[in-house]
């Protein structure tokens, strides 16, 4: 079990800097997620850790050991590939035993550990099968067993669940988390699925353009997203552009639809800055507009543009006077709160409004 440290790592692939100055510390035993849209450099970072790529700049450390020049087969990492990469000419047993053979483990020991690994992923009944006789979920579990059996210093998972159907994906999430709890190995897990990251991770690094945007626990990232990108990428949010007018106990933002008050703002925003007010859809309280109306703090008005019923929730898209679209979500929607075309009021609790710096184009 080791800690993994990326120190100002740069990797150029083709014309682009796939990883661009990555600095990151992953603690020993942590289930750590690299989360980002495609092209954000997360898989490249993982392959750098595995040694398939050598950094163009910077270094990678396992504990304090510099991994520069250590070839992939000497790194003792266990990688689970996106397409599983099970060898089609070997049966399940031989696939899993391969790493132990390379390590010259004795016959008895090998038998024991392969069986144990297959039991961990509940695949012991399929030892004699060839990979193409297994379903996607089963292949996935064999790939996991193959990585586990060598007791690697770090387990690297490259979008391991992306080829599975939705139901199986949920099952495997729980299983991988379970296995992590049992063996407490350091795991680096790459995904573009924010729900997967939120539900499983100890900590998450959100990546964009080869750099890290924010690192934190799932709760920190969700409740205290520090940028519009993170807020939108994790969970989705409403962004109302405006100018910061007051920076006291409450922050006041002048938007095109009126003055909004917020109790939270990211560090570094100052009076006069161009900012976003970020409000999660589930924090928007929607009700039918009553006449005559009183002035309420942080109330917006608009017309329901469309409604999406999702069973456990109902999503309203509301067009404000200036044309901005605001999303509101009601959970457990036993009755509809409004119909398309209704004039509605949207109330925002200042505690649910986060003031974020408006990124400059090209940032």
């Amino acid at each position, binding site marked *: 079990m080791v800690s993994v440290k990326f120190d100002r790592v740069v990797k150029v692939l083709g014309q682009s800097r796939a990883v661009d100055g990555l600095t990151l510390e992953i603690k020993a035993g942590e289930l750590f997620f690299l989360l980002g849209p495609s092209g954000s450099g997360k*898989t490249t970072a993982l*392959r750098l850790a*595995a040694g*398939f*790529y050598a950094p163009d700049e910077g270094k990678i450390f396992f504990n304090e050991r510099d991994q520069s020049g250590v*070839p*992939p*087969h*000497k*790194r*003792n*990492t*266990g*990688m689970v*590939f*996106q*397409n*599983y*990469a*099970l*060898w*089609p*000419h070997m049966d399940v047993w031989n696939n899993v035993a*391969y*790493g132990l053979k*390379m*390590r010259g483990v004795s016959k008895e020991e090998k038998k024991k550990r392969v069986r144990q690994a297959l039991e961990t992923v509940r695949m012991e009944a399929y030892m004699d099968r*060839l*990979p*193409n006789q297994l379903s996607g979920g089963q*292949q996935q579990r064999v790939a996991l067993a*193959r*990585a586990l059996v*060598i007791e690697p210093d770090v387990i690297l998972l*490259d*979008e391991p669940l992306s*080829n599975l159907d939705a139901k199986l994906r949920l099952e495997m999430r729980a299983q991988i988390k379970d296995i992590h709890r049992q063996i407490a190995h350091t795991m680096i897990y790459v995904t573009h699925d924010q729900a997967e990251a939120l539900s499983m991770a100890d900590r998450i690094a959100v990546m964009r353009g080869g750099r890290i945007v924010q690192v934190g626990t799932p709760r920190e990232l969700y409740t205290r997203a520090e940028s519009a990108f993170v807020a939108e990428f994790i969970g989705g949010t409403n962004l109302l552009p405006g100018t910061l007018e007051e920076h006291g106990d409450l922050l006041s933002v002048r938007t095109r639809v009126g003055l909004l008050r917020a109790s939270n703002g990211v560090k570094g925003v100052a009076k006069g800055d161009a900012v976003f007010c970020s409000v999660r859809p589930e924090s928007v309280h929607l009700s039918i507009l009553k006449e005559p109306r009183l002035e309420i703090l942080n109330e917006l008005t608009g017309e329901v543009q469309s409604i999406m019923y999702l069973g456990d929730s109902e999503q309203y898209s509301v067009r404000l006077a200036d044309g901005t679209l605001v999303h509101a979500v009601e959970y457990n929607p036993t009755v509809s709160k409004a119909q398309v075309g209704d004039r509605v009021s949207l109330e925002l609790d200042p505690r649910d409004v986060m003031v974020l710096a408006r990124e400059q184009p090209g940032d």
Partner: protein
Amino acid sequence: MISQLKRYDLSLATAGFLVLLWAFFIAFMLYPLSFVLANAFFTDKGFSLVFFKLMLWSPDYTLILANSINLGLLVTLFTTLLSVPLAFLVVRYEFPGKGLLNGLILIPLVLPPFVGAIGMRQLLARFGSVNLLLIYMGVIDQPIDWFGGGFGAVVLLEVLHLYPIMYLNLAAALANVDPNLEEAARNMGASGLKLFRTVTFPLMLPGYFAGAIIVFIWAFTELGTPLILGYRKLIAVQIFNMVTDLHQNPMGYALVVAVIALTLVFFYVSKRLIGGAGYGMMGRGHVGSAIRPASASLTVLTYAVVLGISCVALIPHFGVLLTSIAGRWFLSVLPGEYTFKFYREVFTHDLTLLSIKNSLFFSTLSTMIDIVLGVTIAYLLTRKRVPGRNLLDALAMLPLALPGLVMAFGYVAAFSATPLDARINPVPLLVVAYAVRRLPYMVRSAYAGFQQTSVALEEAAMNLGASPLKTLYQITFPLVFANLVAGAILCFSFAMLEVSDSLILALKQQNYPITKAIYALMGRVADGPYIASAMGILGLVLLAVSLFMASHFFGRRMGELFRA
């Protein structure tokens, strides 16, 4: 019955084409084959294994059989040993001039080995250049028998001719290995030779066997090279000798059946070894390129290996070139004087001029047949659901596995005393034989073209009001034109230098094609070999130019043509 037919796209035109195709295959593949089988097993007195007994109990024939099998296996083995490192260096490393080297590796493919054999004879004969040179230099005082009785020379020529086929298949197989699978192995601690042995090579096996079986069959039934070298202890040569007295001696039939049987056995074994598993690629994930830039020393090594092998492969043909311009070359290391008169004679001599005309005529006709048949078959296979689809596919590919010798023998035997009798007029059967032999190339080329062309493009045309026939002419054919041209070039050039069909079927001098004329000239004492060499060189140039054009059309997909 009706509901069953509904599963197929059977318009009147489709059904008509199918009937014609089947008629062709039955007449020119199934009937001759069954005729040979019948004659091998049935005598006047009914079913009998007497010829097979004769064959297996006679030490002469068992030796001949063993020789042929050995030839096939040795050539397969040596081509493998040559090609594995070549494929690995070229596929896995990036270095300057890679395209050029790739082309160099393919050159021997255009050097027909039976032409090379002429040069080989000149260089390595008892009093050939090499021995004479060594004697002059005082290295030896008795001439060395380089041919090993002829067998060694046949092996050498075949290896030098066929390794590009092996290389093409191995390179394709290596390029197809999912890089993720190798990465997974390295991640698990494998590297170097261990990685190659446990993961890379096993994954290459299906592609390897696809090429190996072609190389084996090619060498196993090679006729032209041993004939020119005068090595007779091969089954192919025996069969050739027996064509003339088919009626008196049914042994020929038994030998042909033995060739078919052995071919089938090796085919079956190679398929079994793969385990029937063409490892389909699973969903591709992140594909890290497996191609690395080569270090300077590796680049030098690669160049040395490729250039070295190519030079050796060219030596026999260099000998041919020398022979063709040698005014007098007897008991000396190099020709005594040089002249171009033999090239002039090629175009004036009756036999040669006629043979060139013949070859051009036959090859043009057979290529036209190939285009019609090949395009039709490929179109039916890719665009229509037709009954017996798999069988049609298998029949069209069968000539790849079926030795040309077997086909030619079957034609002579099966059509004797019919209007197509090769003894009376060999032209129709020669043209058909050429066409059948090279049909797989045309089918493969057209098939690849149709497959690359999205059906949606055709549907779009029909959607906008084009009739199916219009769509075919205005959309489909223009899109697959390059493939058709490439396939046609291959068919034509291989037909021009087809050996076994020509030697067996062209029974009258006025119908001799180029190859048979060369063979006939080699038998003439005076200037025969010189004129034969000049013709060989002309043939070489022709094949080289056409293959170069074909590979220009095919690009990197060339390898797909030479596999089973």
